[in-house]
């Protein structure tokens, strides 16, 4: 491949370029998230009919599923960025992984707590040690371990590498979470939304759910971009471009 094909990648990996790009993109994702959340909540909490089995209790789905989805997507991002950081020693990649991990931990926490509040009226218990719940709890510990490892070393570069290795080893947990309801008998219900085939859910319930998933994703993008900006600023505080930028404002 000719070098010119990679110029966009090198530009994206340049801290000043990414810092400015993130600053410009974050507000758009923020507004998209706000609109999507407003529409999704109205559709999910008011317009959608009660479930024939679960009554109005099913409405927890509109925060539970987007949180669970993002808890796994964010982990893939942390692991992917960690791999790039390890292999190509790219500073920005580690910054992305560090910025994303606390958000992933928050979504994992929300998936667990909303699932628990959903489980009590439907299953009769807040918690069971079944495959889906346990593997999601392990995901939370992986995030916390990643964050702790980062801060455990005197030299931040050692912390970055140790965290990245943990993130990569932990990837094995993501397909386990996803397929746990298929591989083992579980109290947790199976998937209701399928890509490319008909979903087991009526449109009046499905549309708000897809809206909420999109809105949560935009919210995640907005928060992540802001966090990456802060990471870059901290790492590059002595760089010339940071001084120039601060003088301009």
């Amino acid at each position, binding site marked *: 491949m000719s070098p010119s094909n990679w110029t966009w990648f090198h530009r994206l990996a340049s801290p000043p370029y990414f810092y400015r790009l993130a600053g410009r993109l974050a507000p758009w994702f923020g507004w998209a998230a706000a609109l999507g959340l407003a529409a999704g909540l109205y559709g999910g909490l008011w317009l959608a009919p009660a479930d024939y089995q679960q009554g109005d209790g099913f409405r927890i789905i509109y*925060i539970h599923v987007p949180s669970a989805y993002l808890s796994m997507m964010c982990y893939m991002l942390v692991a992917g960025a960690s791999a790039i950081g390890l292999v190509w020693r790219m500073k920005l990649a580690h910054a992305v992984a560090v910025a994303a991990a606390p958000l992933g931990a*928050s979504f994992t926490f929300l998936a667990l707590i909303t699932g628990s509040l959903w489980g009590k009226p439907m299953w009769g218990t807040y918690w069971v040690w079944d495959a889906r719940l346990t593997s999601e709890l392990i995901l939370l510990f992986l995030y916390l371990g990643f964050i702790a490892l980062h801060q455990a070393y005197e030299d931040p570069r050692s912390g970055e590498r140790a965290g990245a290795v943990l993130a990569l080893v932990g990837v094995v947990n993501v397909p386990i979470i996803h397929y746990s309801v298929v591989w083992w008998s579980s109290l947790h219900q199976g998937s209701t939304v399928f890509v490319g085939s008909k979903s087991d859910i009526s449109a009046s319930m499905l549309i708000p759910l897809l809206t909420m998933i999109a809105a949560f994703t935009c*919210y995640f993008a907005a928060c992540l971009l802001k966090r990456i900006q802060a990471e870059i600023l901290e790492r590059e505080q002595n760089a010339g471009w940071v001084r120039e930028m601060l003088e301009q404002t």
Partner: protein
Amino acid sequence: MTSLHEFLTMGGYGAYVWPAYIIAAVVMVANAIVPGRRLRRMRAALQRKDAA
């Protein structure tokens, strides 16, 4: 939903649905506020350092 009462009680599931939504709102608002604040503080600190 057909009535405000039904909405507020969530057809008897209010004790589970509303705490779930409130916890999610608290966590998400905190996550939205923290990075912007950290960024502003860092910029201000760097500007002070530059001026000194």
